[in-house]
C-alpha cells in the first residue's frame, strides 16, 4: 500500500537512512513506513492512498520499460554491462 503526500514547503529531510526530498506542492508516493516518517516531520499534507487500480496499471508499464532499457543497454555494449555498479574503478587505476 502506497500513500500520496503533498509537500507544504521545500523538504530536504533525513530520518535515519531515509532521505526525503520534495519541492513545495510536489506529490510524492511513499510506502507505509516511509509515509509515517514523512508525516511526522510536519512538512507534508496527506493526499490519500494510491488506488490499487492505479498501482496495478502502472506496474506492468514500468517493468516493460525497465526491461526494454536493460535490453537496449545490453545490446549496445555487451562488454560494458557491469553486474556490480558499486565496483568503482579497477585496481590498476589506483596510484
Amino acid at each position, binding site marked *: 500500500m502506497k500513500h500520496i503526500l503533498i509537500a507544504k*514547503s*521545500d*523538504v*530536504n*529531510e*533525513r*530520518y*535515519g*537512512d*531515509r*532521505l526525503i526530498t520534495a519541492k513545495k506542492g510536489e506529490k510524492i508516493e511513499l510506502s507505509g*513506513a516511509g509515509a*509515517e*516518517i514523512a508525516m*511526522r*516531520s510536519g*512538512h507534508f499534507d496527506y493526499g490519500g492512498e494510491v488506488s490499487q487500480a492505479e498501482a496495478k496499471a502502472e506496474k506492468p508499464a514500468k517493468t516493460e520499460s525497465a526491461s526494454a532499457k536493460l535490453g537496449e543497454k545490453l545490446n549496445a555494449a555487451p562488454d560494458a554491462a557491469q553486474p556490480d*555498479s*558499486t*565496483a*568503482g*574503478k*579497477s*585496481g590498476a*587505476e*589506483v*596510484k
Partner: protein
Amino acid sequence: MQTAQSVFALGKLQTNYTTEVAIANDGFRQLVKEGYDKPVFSSPNVSNQGQSTGSPYATKISKDKDDVTFSGTERGTFQSLGFHAVGAFGVYATPSVVSAGAVWLHTFTLLNPFVSDILPCRPLASKIGEPAVSSNRIFDARFPSMVYSQIAFQAEGEQPDLQIASEWVGSGKRVIPAGVQFYGSGKDVLLDSEITENYIRKTSGVLTLNTAAALGGTDVLPGCDLRDTVIRINENLNLEAGYNGCALFQDDNPDMGAIRGSCRSKGQTVEFETTMVLTPDIVTNFDPVAKLYSGASISMKIVFTGALITGAYYHTATFTLNKAVLSNVELIDIDDGTQGIRLVTEPMAVNDTMPLSLAIQTDVADFNTYVG
C-alpha cells in the same frame, strides 16, 4: 627503518545500508590521519566442538561473522561537526536559510527508535603501507556501511577547542582494492588543502535549572564559563540483529564470513559532563547544596563560536541538553585554585523529550551530501 603511511577517507552518505554510493571525483573526505587508528578487521572461525559429531574434538571449523571497527579523534570545525552529526545524530531537518546563498542553519536530533532505528552510514576507504617500497605492500581496502557506535564532542584538558572522537562499526564487508583514488588527476578524495573549514574558537554555556515542580526551567544563567566539557552519544547498536536479508552482501566465498545486512540502534543515549567556574551568580542562583545536587534536573546550552561568515553572522554550534538528571556533583579546584563545580549527568535515553539537539550555523547548504 621503514616508513609506514596510512590514509583514510570517508565517503558520502549511502542511501541505505545495503546500497553503496558510486565512487565519484572528490566524493570522499580525507581524515586527519594522525588522529585515527587503522581499521581493525576480524574474520573469526568457529569450531563445531561440543556438537554431536561423535568426536570430543572439533572436526570442522567454519567462518563466523566478519566485522570491522574504526576509531579516531580530530579537531572539529563547524563543517566537520555537521559532517559527523548527520550520521551520529540520525535526524537532520531541512536547513533554514539565514542569509540567502551564504548562511544556513542546520538542526540535528536523535532518532526516535519507534519511528526509525537505522542510522545513516558511509563507506570508509583505507590505504596503509610503505609507499617507498613497492605497490604490492600497500593494503588498500574499502569498508562500506560504516555506522557510528559512539561519538564524543569534547573540549577538555589542553584542547580548549572542540575535539570529535568517534568510533565506528562496519558491515564486515570489505572491497579489495578499494577502487578509490587518493591522489592525482581524477582523484576521488578531497585533499586537506582543498577543504576550507573554520575551527571552533570559544565555548560558553547557558545553564537552566529545572525545578522539580515544573520541569520547565525557571532559573536561567547565561554566560557560564565551561571547562572540560564532554557530550557523548552512545548509539547502542544491536550488532547481532543484522544478519538477515543481506542480499547484496551475501557471498558464496567460503573464505569470507557472514556480514550484516543492517545495523540497528536499540536507542541512543546521551551523557554529559562539564566543569563550570563557580561565579557569584552560580553561588547565588544555583546554590550547589540546595539546587545543584545529585538527582537534580538541569538543562543546558553549550555554545561554540567561530569566525565571521558574512554580515553579522558567525559560525556557531549550539548543543542543547534537555532535562538531564545529575548523577554526580562536586566542588573542585580549577586553574590552580579557582573554585569550580563539576557536573556529570546520568545517561539520558530518547523519549518524548529529546535529550540532545545540535544547531549549526555555517556556510554549508546541505550536510546530506557534504564531504568537504
